């Protein structure tokens, strides 16, 4: 699925990272939407460990995104969403995503220079 020469391990890894961060953003938004839903358990998304393993194997496109339920203590209504944590994670997640996008754009800029079309 990758175009050799343009897409390499770096762009593939950044692509996976943006995908994973997008999934996490969705989970965080869902947690915030279910702040007071009885018996709702917060969702946690992990892609970093899988991406790291995939990078070690030399093929970042093999990385997967996994989701699990938070084991934090529940409140009286069986809900364990922690609003300060979710809002913090939401801000941090967006910054991480912007970082990945910047890195990807820097990579493309490099390619543009090489192609000679700045």
């Amino acid at each position, binding site marked *: 699925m990758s175009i050799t020469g343009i897409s390499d391990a770096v762009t593939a890894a950044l692509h996976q990272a943006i995908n994973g961060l997008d999934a996490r953003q969705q989970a965080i938004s869902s947690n915030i939407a279910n702040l007071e839903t009885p018996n709702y358990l917060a969702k946690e998304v992990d892609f970093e460990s899988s991406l790291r393993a995939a990078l070690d194997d030399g093929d970042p496109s093999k990385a997967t995104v996994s989701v699990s339920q938070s084991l934090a203590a529940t409140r009286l209504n069986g809900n364990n969403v922690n609003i300060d944590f979710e809002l913090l994670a939401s801000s941090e997640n967006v910054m991480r*995503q912007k970082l990945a996008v910047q890195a990807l754009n820097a990579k493309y800029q490099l390619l543009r220079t090489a192609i000679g079309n700045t």
Partner: protein
Amino acid sequence: MSAIFGILDVAKSGMGVYKTWLNAVADNIANIDDVTDTSTPAFQERFVQVQAVEDGTGFGHGAAVVGAEFGDPNGRVTYDPNHPLADANGLVRRPDVDLTDQMVYLQLAQRGYQANVQAFERARDAYESILTIGK
């Protein structure tokens, strides 16, 4: 991933849920002083039933209002012989709604709504940054 810009939908569902809750609380407070005669049921406090929504990705797709529940139709029977609706024993029926409860729910619903607005803005930031890829 589901729809394009799907996270905005998730935040929207949250805002909808909390707005419905705010409506219910406002209705409860508006009717808190209703008086009925003892042969008719009292105003019943409104409760909102909410459930998490899944979209098959496992990351969740927000929340949705799935129904309403109602408080006790018997309300509180109080002695008020001068009231025009009082029965032969001087009794009238008032709704069993507690203003303190309602004010707490009001705060919870309002804060929940604000948190979802924040989630919406964060998601918009993220999408705006993604749209700059390749620029």
